[in-house]
């Protein structure tokens, strides 16, 4: 091999190593790592949730694996708890009767870097320290008006999400969640299932091809007793639930409300009610309902 060839080979090797190093440190790789950590790590802690001019504290226990268990309990205001154990979910509230429903099956779906890249521009914002853990800060800048921006604090060691802030179109802080206390256990092996993709396949059968760009269907469940179908769409970071429900005799009309940055928009048309819920702009939830109704109801129908 001549000297020139050696130099070319050496340069190519260096370029390859450099590319690999950058790729491993890319924000999207850290987001994938973050998702894996939530499937593999048991943890307990208290998060502080800042929204609507108030500060709430929520205690979290999360244990993945075969005997998966999650508990979210509000520590301020009225008692509100969400318990997820195996395939069942229960909600306990001080002001309402306990409720139970089946957990959404097959919903763990690995983050798609390409899909995420279409919806957000990801960049590093620096480092920080949260609840005693060293964190790297990732910013996800939305590429359209269908979603909000996000800032995510990711634990450098475990990859666990330590905090998140939702950023509005004017760069305003909409809400913020941050661990104030966190105890991590050893990792538990867990692998994502292909259930999300299977569920997405059902969408075509219902005739409601989604028209909001960047989102794909990642889960679906039907509560036959209530005549309620819930479809869950995600762009990797933002998630929207669309409910399609039979509500006979309900007055036609539309309604909207929000909790923190989570918007709800619903419309009753004939015996059909469609509701969209998600931490996305209000106009976006309306478009979800429009798109769903357009797929469900033929033009001129109901």
């Amino acid at each position, binding site marked *: 091999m001549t000297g020139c060839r050696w130099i070319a080979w050496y340069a190519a090797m260096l370029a390859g190593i450099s590319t690999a190093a950058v790729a491993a440190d890319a924000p999207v790789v850290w987001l994938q790592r973050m998702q894996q950590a*939530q499937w593999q790590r048991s943890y307990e802690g208290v998060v502080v949730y800042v929204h609507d001019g108030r500060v709430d504290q929520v205690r979290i226990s999360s244990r993945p694996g075969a005997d998966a268990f999650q508990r979210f309990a509000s520590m301020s205001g009225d008692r509100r708890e969400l318990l997820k154990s195996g395939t069942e979910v229960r909600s306990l509230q001080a002001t309402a009767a306990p409720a139970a429903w089946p957990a959404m099956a097959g919903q763990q779906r690995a983050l798609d870097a390409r899909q995420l890249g279409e919806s957000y521009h990801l960049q590093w914002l620096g480092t920080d320290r949260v609840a005693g853990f060293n964190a790297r800060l990732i910013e996800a800048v939305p590429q359209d008006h269908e979603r909000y921006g996000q800032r995510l604090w990711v634990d450098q060691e475990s990859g666990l999400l330590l905090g998140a802030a939702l950023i509005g179109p004017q760069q305003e802080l909409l809400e913020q*969640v941050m661990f104030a206390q966190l105890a991590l256990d050893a990792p538990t092996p867990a692998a994502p299932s292909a259930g999300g993709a299977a569920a997405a396949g059902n969408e075509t059968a219902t005739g409601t091809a989604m028209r909001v760009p960047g989102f794909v269907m990642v889960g679906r469940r039907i509560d036959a007793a209530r005549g309620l179908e819930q479809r869950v769409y995600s762009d990797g970071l933002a998630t929207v639930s669309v409910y399609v429900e039979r509500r006979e005799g309900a007055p036609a009309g539309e309604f909207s409300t929000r909790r923190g940055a989570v918007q709800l928009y619903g419309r009753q048309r004939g015996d059909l009610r469609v509701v969209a819920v998600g931490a996305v702009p209000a106009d976006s939830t309306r478009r979800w309902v429009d798109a769903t109704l357009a797929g469900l109801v033929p033009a001129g129908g109901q």
Partner: protein
Amino acid sequence: MNESIREQLSAMADGEIQSESTRFLLKRLDRDPEFRGLWERYHLIRDCLRRQDHVLAPSDFCQRVSQQIESDLGAETAAHSRPQAGSVNPRRQLLWRSLAGGAIAAGVAVVSLFSVRAGVDAGLPQPNAAVANLSQVAAITSRDLIPPWKEQSVARTDRFLLVQTPLASELDRYFMRHGEAAGGVGALGMLPAVRAVSEPVRAATADTAQTGK
């Protein structure tokens, strides 16, 4: 005014007094301006603790403050218009007078603002009306101690004619199920469930609805 009377007045402002004593205090409120001023201050303190809504001062507030300052300064100038033997440098005197004027202005503004604030409060300065409202005043809770700051408002929500909204429990069910389901699909794990279990803020303008669509 003795301490016992003050305590009784404070108790009445908190709605913790017998009706016999109330009648006595109300009579005194009618005829004693100093007593009435104390009554207003107690309410102001209570409102500050409860962080009740701010009330804007009247549009002529600044004008009234300015007039008050001018009249005070005018009186002061007249009193010092004749130079006295051995007096300090007139320039320095002018400087001190300006500073004093500024201090008076600040003081008058604060006092006026508090007076206006107390005056426009519902039920004040009419003692009877205030007593009638006391039964509706809830005790101070930990929620009243939440810092009064706010983040930027969340995305715009269009306003509709309020006709009928699904029950809060129905809406809550949508939020809860979404929080649980969304927690497992995106990369954000715990975040949607944290939102779901946090107590909803009960704002009158949050729920909107319209019919006929």
